[in-house]
């Protein structure tokens, strides 16, 4: 339990907004969406050289807010066991049944690693520096409906609460002698009820409170809403947008 807990905590802390002053915190959320979009398009390439340059490029961009490195590392460490397992599995499978060579299969997996690393660093860059509210604001500006998008905010908001609650429930039941690690599978599943049922009940109560709060605070009364921040493109936003677009085009066109 503690290993899984550790990994989840790491992943969770890596993907949560942090209060700070940085280049990325000041960047217009729409430009950040553009950055994300461009990265996703770029990593679809199969050229390893292109991937390498994109990887270096995104990591260099992260230097504008060095904390991104540490958080990216958290994500990568969290994903490593899973990635290694899949890679070995895929390589063996390809070589044994797919008729590929070991070299080709390994190279493909290296590319997968590189893609994951690129996504990890860009996602972290954005998640750390953008509140879900800003994200929603940017998406609403480009035409999405806010009532659906707010589910995202609520999810991010309640993740830490639910985790803390799970941990409190687990502590509470262990103090009553619950030992999840003992007994056969059936027995263990039955024991899991001691955690899941209280968690479910508490979540229901929380959901009731939240639903009432949303109703009492005018949520969903109108199909539109205003946002207290003004989204106006600044000079730095335009420069950054130009930089990533031009660089991406150049990598795409010039690198073999």
């Amino acid at each position, binding site marked *: 339990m503690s290993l899984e807990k550790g990994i989840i905590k790491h992943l969770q802390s890596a993907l949560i907004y942090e209060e700070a002053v940085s280049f990325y915190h000041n960047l217009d959320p729409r430009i950040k969406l553009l950055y994300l979009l461009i990265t996703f398009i770029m990593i679809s390439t199969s050229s390893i050289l292109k991937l390498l340059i994109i990887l270096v490029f995104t990591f260099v961009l992260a230097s504008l807010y060095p904390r991104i490195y540490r958080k990216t590392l958290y994500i990568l460490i969290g994903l490593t066991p899973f990635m290694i397992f899949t890679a070995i599995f895929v390589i063996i499978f390809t070589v044994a049944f797919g008729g590929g060579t070991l070299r080709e299969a390994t190279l493909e997996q290296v590319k997968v690693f590189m893609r994951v690393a690129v996504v990890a660093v860009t996602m972290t860059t954005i998640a750390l520096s953008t509140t879900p509210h800003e994200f929603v604001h940017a998406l609403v500006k480009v035409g999405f409906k806010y009532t659906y998008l707010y589910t995202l905010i609520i999810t991010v908001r309640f993740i830490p609460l639910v985790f803390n609650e799970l941990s409190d429930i687990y502590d509470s039941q262990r103090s009553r*002698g619950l030992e999840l690690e003992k007994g056969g599978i059936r027995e263990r599943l039955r024991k899991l009820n001691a955690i899941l049922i209280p968690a479910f009940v508490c979540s229901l109560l929380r959901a009731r409170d939240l639903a009432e709060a949303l109703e009492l605070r005018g949520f969903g009364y109108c199909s539109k809403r205003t946002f207290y921040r003004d989204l106006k493109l600044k000079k730095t936003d335009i420069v950054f947008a130009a930089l990533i677009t031009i660089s991406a085009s150049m990598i795409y066109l010039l690198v073999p």
Partner: protein
Amino acid sequence: MKKTIVLKNVTYFYPSSNTPALENISLEVNRGEFLVIAGPSGGGKSTLVRIILGLIPHIYGGVLHGEVLVDGVNVVEKGFRAIVNNVGVVIQNPENQVVNIVVEEEIAFTLENLLYSPEDIRGRVNEAIKALGIEHLRRRLTHTLSSGEIQKVVIASALALNSKILILDEPLAHLDPQGARELISTLYKLCKDKGITVIIVEHRLSELAKYADRIVVLNKRILFDGKPTLAINKLLEIGVEVPPISRLFKELNKSPIPLHVDSSVIEILTRDIVNSNGICTSSSLSSSYDDYTAHKSDRVIFIEDLWYKYPDGRIALRGVNLEIFRGEFIAIIGANGAGKTTLIKHFNGLLKPWRGRVLVFGKDTKFNTVAELARNVGIVFQNPLHQFFEKTVLREVLFTLNNFGCKNCIDRALEVLKIFGLEDYAERSPYELSIGEQRRLAIASIVAYEPPIIVLDEPTAGIDYSLKLELLKILTKIIEKKKTVIIVSHDVEFLALAPLTRIVVMANGEVIASGSPREVFYNVDILKDSHIIPPQIVELVKLLGLERSIRSLNSYEFAEYLKRCYNVS
């Protein structure tokens, strides 16, 4: 005076219930009034809040008779949407009503939903933040805030909307004394300076009563509605917590009954004391002082230079040294975040020391599992809902008994339920019980397997006075069986009633003092360092200058002393 809320003959039945949750309620609230609604748990206080907000019957269903007007709007007919701008509410668990990640976004949320312009919102948010003095919280993440801070953010979001009515449902339950005092004075200021109508539903009245313009006592129907001084008798009668000074005057049969310690109280008591010749000497009283050294024979917990660091690097405990002996009744006190719960989680190995060691009956917790350690240390955590999962009350108790090796112990489980007054509910679902009964069941399921040490984390949070007295009886019975009881609490008025052998004071992860209740509560420096406010009677005794002769902790002791030594009555 202009009425802002009017309820006329309101009776309400929850869906599929034959007995009314509230009966024939008629209530008028004036604009700018500071109203306290008190009453026992299960007396319909939260239901009344939901009715005023329009959630009942529009979301909850059920049958509502009568009329409810908020600022002239008929809420029963028009629904809660019609009064969204008028009323702000802080619910019992305010963290559940916070939707956004950043404080500033949270305060702007309602305004954004109601299509205010960005400039207007920014102006209003700034004003609300200023009014509550929470500029330092503006960019903070909402899940990192303390209970008190969250309440302020929720209040700020109501102020930003210019709501003229604020309703708070049991706002003091999770606050430490300092936090409670701070919140009440903030609300009082908003009420008097900005003319906001404040309605507080609460049964912890010690701090609150003196601020109230009016108190309504509610137990399904309105039992009293009037000036706080006149409400005291009713409150005492139905077993709601009143300020200890009021209880003292009641014990001494004096009137008028005061609500807080002020110059007139001091004058009255000083006159009585001076007029009568004291017949007690200080030495005759010293024998009643607690002496926990008497217990120092059999050590059950030994903590040596304990340090604990959270995974995020924050240090929660800093070099704690503590010894606990068999038969002791100990309270661990301190402000929220002082490290109390972190400390007790070391007793059964839920947390392992980062540095130092913890020995329970000589066993080092580092090398033993929670299941092994829990045989000796039973911990009852704050929220009973975190442990219920079985179909019946009886099975909840059997679950714990089974885990500790007592198979087929139905008789024993039933016996324990009987001790806790729950035998009639044995076949009911734990979720059908009231808050007080759930708390008793949580304790019962631990007491059942008879661990020699029982630890309770904030056992009095959110329960009313009569339930507290009931809890005290249960704990006293456990102590009589030569068990060790440790409670973590910041409810000083409850602790002042308990026959504690020792109080351990914590602040910033350290134990800053440990001594008998009288030593600790009468030591100004210790309390100041730990942000604890002493029991009211302690403040009174000090103001009367009787500290050298008597160190009473509660109204019963002090009344008895005054009657015995000064014939005051």
